[in-house]
């Protein structure tokens, strides 16, 4: 089903509000980088507002394999009503339900632990296999960066997903680029996945219509696991805030947070 213009406008408003929440979270926490979180809310908004709740007849589970995207996940879960918005301002604080990495025992709406430097696909694939064995109508969506291509375990696990017929598994790769050019390593890897038997697609991660077309075309009775490469452009976001918070040790002060919020207001 084609996504309507009106629905796209609704999603754009939601993602704009989420971006502001992310800036406030990281600003108030005075900890963490904006560089990645500010560029991916559209992907999360699409997944949580269009896929996770609208895939009729299927239960969806979300596996976050990019630790830097944790603030985005929290902002989205808050917006979806899993916990109050005021919890966001306690991000990374002692006693908060929102620690630096999602804790699925503590944070409402979180489906799995997020591992640093590991292959989240390994957790998601094992989980998806159990759902198939139990005939559960369930889809496992795993979000990773293309960094995992360097890990030998990734190809092993990808092969395993094909061999076991994990058609209920969607592996989304976020491909960050400034010039919309797909690097050779990514192209090689997508070709490998395709040859293995994965259903491989590319889409613009900032374009709801593009993402919607891909998901509308998915057939979950097909046993092929699905790999979706979402290209994330980095040319139209918060130049000041991202520059200031690039790198793991930097953080925003309140003045920089205000500038970042003004920049976001200016983009609307």
């Amino acid at each position, binding site marked *: 089903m084609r996504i309507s213009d009106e629905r796209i406008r609704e999603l754009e408003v939601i993602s704009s509000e989420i971006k502001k929440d992310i800036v406030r979270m990281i600003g108030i926490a005075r900890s963490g980088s904006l560089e990645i979180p500010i560029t991916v809310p559209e992907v999360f908004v699409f997944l949580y507002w269009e896929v996770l709740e609208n895939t009729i007849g299927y239960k969806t589970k979300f596996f976050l394999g990019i630790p830097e995207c944790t603030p985005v996940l929290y902002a989205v879960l808050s917006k979806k009503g899993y916990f109050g918005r005021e919890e966001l301002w306690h991000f990374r604080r002692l006693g908060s339900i929102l620690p630096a990495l999602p*804790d*699925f*025992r503590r944070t409402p709406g979180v*489906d*799995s*632990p997020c*591992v*640093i430097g*590991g*292959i*989240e696909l*390994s*957790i*998601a*694939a*094992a*989980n998806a*296999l*159990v*759902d198939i*064995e139990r005939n559960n109508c369930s889809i496992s969506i795993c979000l990773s960066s293309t960094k995992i291509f360097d890990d*030998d*375990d990734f190809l*092993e*696990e990808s*092969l*395993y997903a094909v061999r076991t017929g994990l058609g209920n598994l969607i592996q989304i790769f976020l491909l960050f680029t400034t010039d919309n050019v797909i690097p050779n390593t990514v192209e090689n890897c997508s070709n490998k996945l395709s040859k293995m038997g994965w259903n491989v697609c590319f889409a613009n991660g900032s374009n709801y219509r593009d993402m919607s077309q891909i998901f509308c075309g998915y057939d979950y009775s097909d046993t092929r696991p699905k790999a979706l490469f979402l290209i994330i452009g980095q040319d139209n976001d918060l130049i000041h805030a991202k520059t200031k918070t690039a790198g793991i040790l930097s953080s925003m002060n309140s003045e920089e947070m205000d500038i970042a919020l003004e920049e976001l207001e200016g983009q609307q």
Partner: protein
Amino acid sequence: MNGISPECSTWDAFCFNIANLAAKDADIVLVENDDRLSAAFKTKIGHNQLFHSTGSSANLILNAAGLALNGKKTWLIGSTESIVSAHGRIREALAIPSLPVRIVAANGGLSLGHESASEQITEDIAVMRTIPEITVLVPSNAANVASIINYASSLPSVAYIRLGLSKIAAVPCEPLIEDFPSCGARIVKSGADVTICSCGIMVGEALVAATTLDKQGIDAEVIDCYCIKPFPEQVLLASVRRTGCCVVAEEGTRIGGLYGAVSESLAATCQVPVRSVAIEDHFVNSGTPDELREYCGLLSNDIVNAAAQVWPLRRR
């Protein structure tokens, strides 16, 4: 224990018992990445109950996490070397989210004696003990393995079970002195002069040592400390308050293992002389397991010597 010899290795006893348990419970799944290990139970359990993980041992841990997240009663089986090398992943993917995964190390201690030091991991208990909120279990012989499996099955979070490939003599336990699983340790021989706190294969050696000590007029009490973490402090304290001294016997490095746990406990509560019968701070070369145990000083005679040293210093 029908179907296996009481003197078989704890690994063989585990394979027998887990296959029986899996036959009764379809939710049990065994995750492994080593065909040599899975061959022991491959034909005895359902196809869907064996998950062969591909890739590294870190990947094995993540697969186990995925299965446990979806409600499977997950038993992760691997060589001690592969499990210890995945320490960071165990911490991150299993211990922090507190997933009920039972990690079974098949070849702990010196039971892989013929291999090099790189595969003979004697520090596994020390490594696992330092990860917060993990239970560490070491069955002393084949007869105890079923109880250890039942105990581990009831735990809500990660348990590490150290097994061995060497055949062990059955431990003749004084009946009904302690409930097996509830307190973490049991007194297998009562005595009044020296406490010998032991685990795993060393419980049998401790009992032989106790017989020798008895002939020398020293009445030793032998504790089978099958749960090293959480440490069964009350059982140990009750014993050393009577005996006034302690010998710790374990098939592992003396740093951070059972000796570490005993020393930490007694330093805070009841300061008595303690001696260790364990592997010193060095790597162990190749040899047969029996040769290596003799070389490393892990025989009953070594326990007797340690007890004879500590007994005159006892504090009551």
